[in-house]
């Protein structure tokens, strides 16, 4: 199928992101892993809407007539814009809570932060 290398890259990045969230004990690395995972999904979304030899979805006075034959799909690009905003706000919130957690626990190691049990 077309552009299989982009889909494979997206899948590899997803695996890398989940590995970072699950296995790395440092809190900042977990947040970075989360960002890698969401970026992989954005890549997947844009690749779904793309086309071989496509032009960017911008209408200029020259290509008004042949626009729909050559351009890539603009809907996933709008979805990705929205998703970038959401992931930005989650990362900002996670970093703020991580700063406050560092003040309480004096460490960023999540294995030492597990007080709640049962």
């Amino acid at each position: 199928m077309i552009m299989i290398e982009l889909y494979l890259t997206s899948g590899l990045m997803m695996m890398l992101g989940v590995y970072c969230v699950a296995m790395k004990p440092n809190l900042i690395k977990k947040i970075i892993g989360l960002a890698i995972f969401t970026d992989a999904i954005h890549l997947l979304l844009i690749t779904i809407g793309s086309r071989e030899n496509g032009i960017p979805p911008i209408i200029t006075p020259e290509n008004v007539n042949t626009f729909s034959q050559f351009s890539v799909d603009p809907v996933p690009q709008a979805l990705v814009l929205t998703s970038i905003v959401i992931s930005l706000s989650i990362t900002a919130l996670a970093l703020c809570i991580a700063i406050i957690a560092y003040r309480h626990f004096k460490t960023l190691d999540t294995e030492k932060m597990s007080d709640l049990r049962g």
Partner: protein
Amino acid sequence: MITIVLSVLFLAAFLVLVLKRDIIAISAIIFSFIFFLLAYFSPDIMMFAFSGWSPPFGIVWVLDKLGLFMAIMITGIMSLTAVYSVKYVKERKHRYYTLICLLTIGLIGISLTGDIFNMYVFFELMSVASYALVAFLLNKESTEAALKYLITGSLSSSFLLVGIAMLYGLTGTLNMADMALKISGGPVFMIVLGLILGGLSLKSAIVPFHFWLPDVHPAAPSPVSALLSSVIIGSGVYMTIRIIFTVFGIMSIFWMLIILGLITMVVGGLMAIMQKDVKRLLAYSTVSQVGYIFIAIGMGTPAGVTAGLFHLFNNILLKCLLFLSFGIILWHTGTRDLNKLGGLGKRMPWVAFCFGIGALGTAGIPPLNGFASKWLIYLATWEVSPIITSIAIIVSAITLAYYLKVFSCIFMGPSTFKIVKKTPKTMLIPIIILAIICIIIGILPQIGMMFVEPATNVLLEQGQYINAVLGVG
């Protein structure tokens, strides 16, 4: 019309931050509750296309009976909790009310939208507001619980986004009614359904993904715990039901839901017996009740889906009641440990009454609403397989056991605390209202069925929904 409600709520969220008056937020939520209550009694499915773009191209909001039913429940519970937290939350109140308004907007958006990516955006808005609300107290356990919830929650909603991306790639549209026409059975759609269910199971507290709930509940302030357990879990279950029934149609995944529901029920019940912290116990009880809902919905028959929706409705009411009344006890005594609490029944008779109603209702004792919905679940599951019914009855007995333990430990026995503060009226009135509603629905379950049966019809009649959305617009 809907833009007025949304705009009022958004305005309230920002104005309460700037002007620092809490009454703006509370009146906005009560206004939206009255609006949805009035909108419920109009005859057929209303549709609202934003900016005039008609359905397959633009975002539509579909006000059918199920969505309006959820919106009424959500705004009702949020207004009661907002009134309750006037006296409970002491510092940085204006930021708390902004987050509550944003949570309400997210929840209403999930219930009423007809576009799957729009549902994801509002789901994320609700999740971010709930992450910030859980970390509100900013002490040691709050930050740890909030971090755990945040990282796992956003990872799982990213899986939901993968599922939605694949659905867009396979069908070419984002509108749920249009998607329902283009989906056929096939292995690819099963993969997509697996991804979506895997992403939504964390918010619905299904067993392999329930681990955040018992850590988050003790760490959050009491009104936030009430909202988390009743309404946020309710919207997770609503999203699952909407995607499975309206988008995918009646396909044969039902045994998976039943098995997941059984495991959830049993694990929730067994883990709840051995808890010493009251809020963790109530959290595991929520997990157990969600198991009941999934067993009933997994039947696929009209009786099963009705029973499941009715139990969802009752669970929202009862869990909010339980957490709010325990919040009053926590406000007075400052401890959640069962070993230290005791003998508060004489000093706080109203709170004991309301907590008792909530406990007996969840366990399924006759004149209350929990009994009506559990009886319907037993009847619905008896036709498919009697083993499921017997497991459900055993877990119900276990539920009664641990609620009796909690009730007798907190309210009976020798008194260990001196209650000096008087319970404020704004904290007592919401729980008394909830307890009265529970008793009324228990004695006359027809009132509950009056709301639930049209909702079931919407879910099972997929063709009617598609015609209403695509035929008119």
